[in-house]
């Protein structure tokens, strides 16, 4: 008992010490964040921190080493976040709310640009920070633009591709009707015909938006007003619902995210798969892949030509709380250079944002899907650019999901989607 009491006293003492530490920590961080920091450091140079999601393709360490050896007084430190997009978002939000000057450059998913810009966290890239975007692919610039101002430098793009079994379908389908007509081949081989990302998460927004945009619908107009309630949108979503019902889209595809679809395709269970470029290298090299030499890549099919892909990818923004913005801006220009963009492509299969790289003969020989990817990105439509993106994507997912599954009529789903986007973006 005596021993117990001693232990408890020690615990209480520890708790008290921890409290003191907490309180002092709170005070010190409070005093260091002054309101003038937003404007400070515009022409200042010095060491900066570069924040990005987990660097799975290992491109950043060598790139930063290259910069650091050329700029010994303006060293860049890499700060890796998790590999989960939602957590990266929340991490940036927390540091920005704390006005943390140690997050100089943040990696922004294309769908976060508007939100961060509207919160006033990103330095507008105009005036002394004006950036030449003429050699970049246009959709990547549009996705980094909010309110007619560029807020981030495109770093890597991404577009949807149609992976197909060239051993079963020698020429890839150019239109959707053509693609669905090939489903009889899948049926005769006892495999699924088509899958995308239909689980209820961000991937569903991407896929539903593609179906709607390809059919000629538009989720929001240029002012951000919802315009999804149209016959074209209905047609796009109805197509997915119909083909889910008749089995062309296999039943289990409603649970697929990127990886499950890739695994099914690599196991030879799918004739067509909509996915991102990263699948290419894996399907070619994975030990478990039975389709190594049996698949090809085509642009997403549309009504009469290439369909509209949803644009993916990331940009780099300068935090308004950075103390060395001049250095940060130079680093942004550095990563837009051809040499770095080529390196990202070769080392990490990241889709370049510089248009000319897609025409580099040596690269195309090595990565035959590059021209297809360029077509995909050129035809890509950014997902709704709105500061209320989290609510808008919820509105799309929560209505597209039951519509595809047949739990709700497409007509009702489109009406509800329109209403939910309207309610989300009205600023209430």
């Amino acid at each position: 008992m005596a021993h117990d009491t001693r232990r408890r006293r020690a615990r209480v003492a520890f708790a008290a010490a921890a409290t003191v530490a907490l309180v002092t920590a709170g005070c010190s961080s409070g005093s260091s964040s002054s309101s003038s920091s937003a404007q400070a450091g515009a022409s200042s140079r010095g060491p900066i921190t570069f924040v990005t999601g987990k660097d799975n393709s290992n491109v950043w360490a060598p790139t930063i080493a290259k910069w650091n050896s050329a700029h010994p007084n303006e060293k860049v430190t890499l700060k890796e976040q998790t590999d989960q997009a939602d957590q990266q978002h929340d991490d940036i939000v927390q540091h920005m709310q704390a006005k943390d000057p140690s997050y100089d450059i943040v990696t922004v998913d294309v769908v976060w640009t508007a939100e961060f810009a509207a919160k006033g966290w990103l330095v507008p890239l105009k005036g002394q920070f004006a950036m030449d975007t003429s050699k970049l692919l246009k959709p990547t610039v549009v996705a980094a633009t909010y309110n007619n101002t560029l807020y981030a430098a495109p770093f890597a793009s991404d577009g949807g591709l149609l992976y197909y079994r060239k051993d079963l379908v020698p020429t890839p389908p150019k239109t959707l009707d053509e693609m669905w007509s090939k489903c009889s081949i899948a049926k005769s081989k006892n495999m699924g015909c088509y899958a995308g990302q239909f689980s209820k998460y961000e991937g569903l927004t991407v896929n539903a938006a593609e179906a709607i945009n390809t059919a000629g619908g538009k989720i929001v107009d240029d002012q951000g007003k919802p315009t999804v309630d149209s016959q074209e949108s209905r047609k796009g979503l109805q197509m997915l619902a119909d083909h889910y019902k008749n089995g062309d889209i296999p039943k289990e595809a409603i649970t697929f995210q990127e990886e499950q679809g890739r695994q099914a395709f690599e196991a030879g269970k799918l004739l067509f798969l909509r996915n991102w470029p990263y699948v290419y290298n894996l399907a070619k090299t994975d030990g478990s892949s039975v389709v190594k030499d049996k698949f090809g890549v085509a642009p997403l099919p549309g009504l009469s030509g290439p369909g509209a892909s949803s644009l993916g990818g990331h940009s780099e923004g300068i935090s308004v709380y950075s103390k060395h913005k001049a250095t940060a801006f130079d680093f942004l220009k550095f990563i837009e250079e051809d040499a770095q963009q080529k390196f990202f492509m070769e080392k990490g299969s990241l889709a370049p944002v510089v248009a000319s790289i897609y025409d580099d003969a040596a690269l195309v020989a090595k990565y035959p899907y590059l021209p297809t990817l360029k077509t995909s990105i050129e035809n890509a439509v950014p997902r709704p650019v709105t500061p209320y993106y989290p609510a808008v994507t919820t509105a799309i997912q929560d209505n597209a999901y039951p519509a595809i599954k047949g739990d709700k009529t497409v007509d009702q789903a489109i009406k509800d989607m329109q209403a939910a986007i309207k309610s989300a973006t009205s600023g209430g």
Partner: protein
Amino acid sequence: MSTTVETVTRPSTPPSKRKRGGLNAGQGRRGLFLVLPTIVVLTVVIVYPLISAVILSFQKDSGLDKATGLFVEGGPAGLSNYTHWLLADCGTGRSSCPPGSIGSLFWPALTITLFFTVVSVSLEVVLGLWFATIMNREFRGRGLVRAAILVPWAIPTAVTAKLWLFIFAYDGIANHLLGFVGISPLLWTGDAWPARFAVIIADVWKTTPFMALLILAGLQLIGSDVYEAAQIDGATRWQTFTRITLPMIKVPLMVAVLFRTLDVLRIFDLPWILTGGGGGDGHATTTLSILVIKQIREGFHSASALSTIVFLIIAFVAFLFIRFGGADVVQRPPKGARGDKVKLTENPAVEAVAEGN
């Protein structure tokens, strides 16, 4: 939360002091000095966040200034954050939140959370009683059985959830087993009821050991002489169970049920990883906590209102349990003779569990 309070405040009234009756002035000062750090800690870690959450819940989320395209502070909101949830009011009156907006999900999320709580805890009580009875018997390999039963509880919830995600995959083990008995594969994480039961199955698998452990601790306090007497009196097994075992383990059982009920009311990680809150019409497994997290991404202040509502619901349930259910978590003041109830805090196993939380 109540267990934390219990463990931290106990030093203020060490049992040795009680026997002496009153305290003199010096001891009072010393007592105050000893309690002070606790009060400071509690203020910082419990009272402050709680109050600030309540204050935040009466603020509007920042809105967009149409002219600049930048966010501006929202100002005071009155009760609108609360009516937003309770009446599904998205600014234009009752039930105006369209399907697909988070505001429309409060009542479905509350219903599904209560459903999880009732079904999950009931199953756990039945299975926990069964396991505890087995573990309480003397037999060869008892240690091994106890260890085996405790394994699921030792695995972190996130790992459990991922494990069951693989089991419930379309071509996973669960569907293969169903195939053996001629049932066509289920969309475990896609359809409404399979998704709900996937969550319940995984939760029961994971936490029944906790229940069994607490019940076992109660069972071990019952002397064998009581059972011998019952045997001599000719009581049947069922009579022995309902007249002796159940009343004797009532308090630890109620405490276990209380802990588990509060846990399930707050459940987040398991359904989040297993189904993402989806299934059926897209939110068949969205619990209140998942709703809070989703809302935080869209605006803090209505999330504060929602967490305040959730807090009140949980506090109310805990109150019901302690007031009417006999879940005597907090030790009574040392006045008068001690009751013959088995106190939670006298039970080493239970205390270890409580402190481990």
